[in-house]
């Protein structure tokens, strides 16, 4: 897996709604190498504040000559705020693509993508790839957010050919409650999916833990993409570890940046996180 340290030119950067932004740039090398679930380390400041790069998932990616990468991000603190001030033609320093990416499902196997909040970011690239590979399967997308004004990319997932279900914590759109609850009711209805679908989840840790719990209950395997504070993003600093259990049940630390960010749903030691 080859990664690049690049200075790219921003093509577009605009607000979708509230604090949610979509940024795009062109880079053939990165776009050519990227697989769904991978991320970039992005330098957000011109100076030394904030100091560290910020990890951001690859949200969309068109390979080939075009080589266009999209990033979906939420303004949370100083780094993402500075990013939101960038304009087309500004330069951006990125390192990537990094991380392992999602293992792709076997031929024709149905998948359920479960996104909590910004969790939609890497899952959209996955949906892009899965709809493009033309292997007949159904792609279900369950998107959860605290309220309807925080829902992102619902239309885009639909337009890409996925069937989308929505939940909001406050009930302002879709089913009321957490997206893990939506997943449970979804898996509960027979006929919704092929015998054993594959789950791909991304979102806050408590949500992922709940998804892992529901998946275990229904015996559905799957993957989740995790977050951790990252200093290097390339496996060098040993900073981003999470406790996981290996096959034999022995606990060890794994690096989210390099061994992940994608892990089996039952791999993290959820109780210890």
């Amino acid at each position, binding site marked *: 897996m080859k990664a690049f340290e690049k200075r790219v030119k921003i093509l577009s950067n605009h607000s979708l709604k509230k604090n949610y932004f979509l940024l795009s740039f062109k880079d053939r090398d990165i776009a050519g190498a990227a697989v769904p679930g991978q991320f970039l380390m992005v330098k957000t400041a011109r100076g030394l504040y904030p100091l*560290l790069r910020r990890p951001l998932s690859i949200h969309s990616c068109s390979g080939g000559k075009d080589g266009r990468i999209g990033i979906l991000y939420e303004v949370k603190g100083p780094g993402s705020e500075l990013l939101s001030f960038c304009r087309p033609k500004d330069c951006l320093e990125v390192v990537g693509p990094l991380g392992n990416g999602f293992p792709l499902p076997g031929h024709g196997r149905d998948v359920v993508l479960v996104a909590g909040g910004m969790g939609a970011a890497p899952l959209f690239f996955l949906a892009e790839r899965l709809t493009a590979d033309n292997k007949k399967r159904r792609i279900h997308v369950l998107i959860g957010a605290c309220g309807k004004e925080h829902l992102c990319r619902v239309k885009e997932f639909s337009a890409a050919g996925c069937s989308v279900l929505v939940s909001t914590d406050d009930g302002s759109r879709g089913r009321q409650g957490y997206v893990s609850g939506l997943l449970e009711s979804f898996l509960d209805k027979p006929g919704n999916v092929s015998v054993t679908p594959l789950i791909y989840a991304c979102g806050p840790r408590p949500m992922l833990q709940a998804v892992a719990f529901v998946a275990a209950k229904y015996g559905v395997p799957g993957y989740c993409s995790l977050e951790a504070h990252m200093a*290097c993003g390339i496996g060098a600093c040993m900073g981003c570890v999470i406790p996981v259990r290996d096959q034999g049940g022995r606990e*060890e630390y794994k690096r989210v940046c390099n061994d992940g960010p994608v892990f089996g749903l039952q791999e993290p030691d959820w109780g210890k996180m």
Partner: protein
Amino acid sequence: MPPAVKTEVKIGRMILRNPVTVASGTFGYASEFAGFLDLRELGAVTTKTITLKPRRGNLPPRTCETPAGMLNSVGLENPGIDVFLRDKLPYIAGYKVPVIVSIASESDNREFIELAKRLDACFDAAAIELNISCPNVRHKKLGTGAYLIAQDARATYRLVKAVRAATKKTIITKLSPNVTDIVSIAAAAEEAGSDALSMINTIAGMSIDVGSRRPRIGAVLGGLSGPAIRPVAVRMVWETSKRVRIPIIGMGGISDTSGALEFIMAGASAVGVGTGNFLQPSLSAGIARGIKEYMREHSIGNIKMLREGLKYAC
């Protein structure tokens, strides 16, 4: 043709083609960076600190950001010397760049000695760096308030002396800034036979997330690194270089060529890029080139002249 500049420096019995290495623990085992720079552009590669047995390291979260710096409490996670010698060292040595192997002990000096003996027998290790200053692994109290060997001149002397007897390799002693008087520790290391000093390790620090009212680091305390600490590191190199004769590898917050030059002008023979590697993976090689450019622009033929060249009468 640009005028030739001599950037070679000697650290113990080791010859570095230029004065730039990396700081232990910030460059992994070099393979992580091989895609971003040509390792042969570095004067030397310094490895993550190795212990005798594998170490799991500390509870996450292990890193957090602070103004122009970061805290880390990795706790010396490493696969142990056996795996290191088998899987990691040959890879780096394959690049024909001198390898400085950083070692530490979880208990007493005997582990240091055993590690040194193992490395003494190992052609691929050019030098041994004694990490007696990692603030994330607390030893039993050594004396008044000291919990690191590098906080106690006598403990430093004893350890370096013992390791000196165990190996002919170049020994570099890595010093801690968490002391009242770093010069006295440096002098103890020199007297005990250390060939060089590496300074500084991180400054013990703490950060609290006031929203959740929790420490940002799982182990509560961490080590502060990055540009924030550069003035402290440069000062310590300056103070020490006036008092010891062995060469100093200066580090702490180098994030560009001019940061590296500050250390050399303060008296360091070489520099280590640490947290800077995270900001820009190719940085260390860029600084090696940057120093050459600076020397050309300022018509400085030999890196030594830069070291002796601080325009200040004292």
